């Protein structure tokens, strides 16, 4: 695996601390490690059974095979180390809506604001690059750290489905959060997705 090598990391969207890029052939090995870590699956919403490599490969098909999903690998920008994945699912071009999901797989990358910035960059991608109007997510109420990060990134709580998540013997609410394109301030892509200016040679 090419970890810690910025030359091998291809960045599509570069923030201050993290960058987003396409998945690589190594990604399945990362997912295999991350999804078998209970610290990750406790909040990732991917279930908590064992993940065989075959199951991982099936899951990873979403990275390459679907028009209504868009997944990025999250890198620590300065080192090029992959730290997680973030994606838009159920992209609906008619209603211009999508759902958002993110997993920080590397334990050492948590608590540094990386998830918040990656989420902000994903909203930039959704609203500016894809022209979507609304992005929705759901998160378990036992994960207040994520809820705070989503709020900082631009999501607002819009509802709570009561007791719909049974975890560790307790019923928790499922919290729904939404971000709208209206009023979104683009951190990166707004400077790229602009009309061309007339060139001097055209005049």
């Amino acid at each position, binding site marked *: 695996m090419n970890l810690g090598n910025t030359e091998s990391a291809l960045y599509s969207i570069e923030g201050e601390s993290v960058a987003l890029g396409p998945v690589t052939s190594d990604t399945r090995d990362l997912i295999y490690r991350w999804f078998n870590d209970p610290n990750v699956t406790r909040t990732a919403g991917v279930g908590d059974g064992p993940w065989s490599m075959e199951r991982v490969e099936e899951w990873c098909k979403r990275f390459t095979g679907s028009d209504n999903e868009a997944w990025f690998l999250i890198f620590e920008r300065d080192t090029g180390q992959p730290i997680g994945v973030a994606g838009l699912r159920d992209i609906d071009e008619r209603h211009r809506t999508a759902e958002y999901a993110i997993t920080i797989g590397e334990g050492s990358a948590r608590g540094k604001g990386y998830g918040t910035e990656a989420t902000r960059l994903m909203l930039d991608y959704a609203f500016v690059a894809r022209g979507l109007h609304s992005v929705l997510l759901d998160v378990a109420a036992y994960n207040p750290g994520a809820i705070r990060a989503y709020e900082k990134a631009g999501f607002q709580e819009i509802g709570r489905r009561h*007791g*719909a998540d*049974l975890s560790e013997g307790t019923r928790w609410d499922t919290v729904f959060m939404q971000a709208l394109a209206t009023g979104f301030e683009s951190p990166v892509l707004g400077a790229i997705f602009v009309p061309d200016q007339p060139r001097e040679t055209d005049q």
Partner: protein
Amino acid sequence: MSAERPIVNVVGQQVALGPLRRDLIPTIQRWFNNFESDRTQGDIPGPRTLERATAWYERMANRDDGYWYTIYETTDWQPIGMTWLADIDHRHGTAYFGISIGDQANRGRGYGTEATRLILDVAFKQLGLYNVALDVYANNPGGIRAYQKAGFTEYGRIREAYVSGGRRWDVILMEAIRPELDHPAST
């Protein structure tokens, strides 16, 4: 016009619920071509062939993660629509509810409200689920009222997330919770 009573699973006052039936595929096709249904179901209005209705039937008639019912009115035992529990999740005790009254003439008569009550009875008493949720669009106040009467309450609103008739509408999230206490031992 009194038809023979079909096989049904749940019988209420005005309506009853029974399994989907292959011989009703042409009726389902007629319902699928009703744009009034598309407006509230969220399907893109368009022509629906018999092949497409048949393919839908094949998918829905034999599922483990959902229960699809035909709704009958109990006077003449005519099929008037469909209702379903989808994404039944026994680990968390959750499911999604949906309903479609096929013909405009059968709307506004309380059929939908009673069918919704009956299916909540299935969800809570028969399956032991805890939380049944639905999505309804803000352009469908009749549906919202029927769901409230049947026991659903609004728990959230996705702003401007549904396009119909050239404008944006909110998506209203509603839930119904199993009436008994979760742990009878704690009473």
